[in-house]
């Protein structure tokens, strides 16, 4: 029985190692030109594409796989810069490159996210109705200028051609409530963007307010978009 278990474990390690090698090969051939050898972006192209730093991700490996497969635009990004690779890579290759990126550049991402969230104020579930009301007020005042009242990312602020801001379509976002709260609290730069388009709202609002806004986005806006 022990021998069988050892063989199963060994096979798992070999498979993970094979997947890592496959992902590494694809990354070097396909992703490195924008994201750089260290995952922090190729400095020679960063003035054009500004890729996110893969070393400071908020995504899970599964979410990274979905973005590589479908492209960032399909997942809510305004600019169509991170393309879809589903016509170039098969399922095995898509999973392999997501695995490689996650293990190579930010293996402790989930740990970091869980730790940060554990430090935030816990909110009782029975407060949901109050949170939705409060979240709507704050969302409409502070977030809708960029993300729009319906969350589709086409807010008033995007209509000024001088502004060059590219807010996310929140109703298409892959982020769950925990991730979205942490993103809003610490801002885009903390999570790997190069510009400070998405500010750190934790400097202004408490956890209850930010969790209320996220609740409003997830329950109300995503609900209306379905």
């Amino acid at each position, binding site marked *: 029985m022990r021998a069988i278990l050892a063989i199963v474990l060994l096979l798992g390690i070999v498979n993970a190692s094979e997947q890592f090698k496959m992902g590494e090969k694809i990354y070097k051939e396909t992703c490195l030109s924008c994201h750089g050898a260290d995952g922090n972006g190729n400095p020679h192209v960063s003035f054009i594409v500004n890729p996110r730093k893969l070393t400071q991700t908020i995504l899970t490996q599964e979410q990274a796989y979905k973005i590589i497969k479908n492209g960032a635009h399909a997942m809510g990004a305004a600019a169509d810069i991170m393309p879809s690779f589903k016509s170039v890579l098969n399922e095995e290759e898509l999973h392999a490159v997501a695995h490689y990126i996650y293990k190579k550049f930010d293996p402790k991402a989930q740990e970091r996210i869980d730790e940060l969230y554990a430090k935030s104020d816990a909110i009782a579930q029975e407060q949901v109705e109050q949170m939705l009301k409060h979240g709507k007020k704050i969302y409409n*005042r*502070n977030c809708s*200028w*960029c993300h729009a009242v319906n969350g589709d990312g086409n807010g*008033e*602020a995007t209509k*000024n051609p*001088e*502004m*060059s*801001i590219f807010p996310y379509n929140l109703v298409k976002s892959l982020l769950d409530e925990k991730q979205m709260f942490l993103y809003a609290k610490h801002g885009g730069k903390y999570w790997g963007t190069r510009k400070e388009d998405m*500010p*750190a*709202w934790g*400097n*202004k*609002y408490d956890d209850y307010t930010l969790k209320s806004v996220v609740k409003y986005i997830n329950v109300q806006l995503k609900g209306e978009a379905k």
Partner: protein
Amino acid sequence: MKKIIVAGLILSSALFGAEHVIDQKGKTFIPHAITVAVGDTLVFKNSDPFAHNAFTDNAANEFDTGMQAPGNDISIKVKAAGVFNVECAIHPNMLLTVTAK
């Protein structure tokens, strides 16, 4: 003649209030604190290449500029005495403290 002009300026200032320019530049209110008289006007400029939205929730002086495009000026009259904060709805680190006497 000079005396008449000076007197006229003082009189018009007393009648219409003074203007105080508040620039919004580098996601900061410049200056970030100001003392004014009731009846004075705050002129919000936007020298950033993106929009701002100054507002205050202070009941006696409540205002909201709405979306202010780059290069636009918006004037707000100070209605009541007191100390109040002005924020930007888009940029959470912007804060202006107005003391109205």
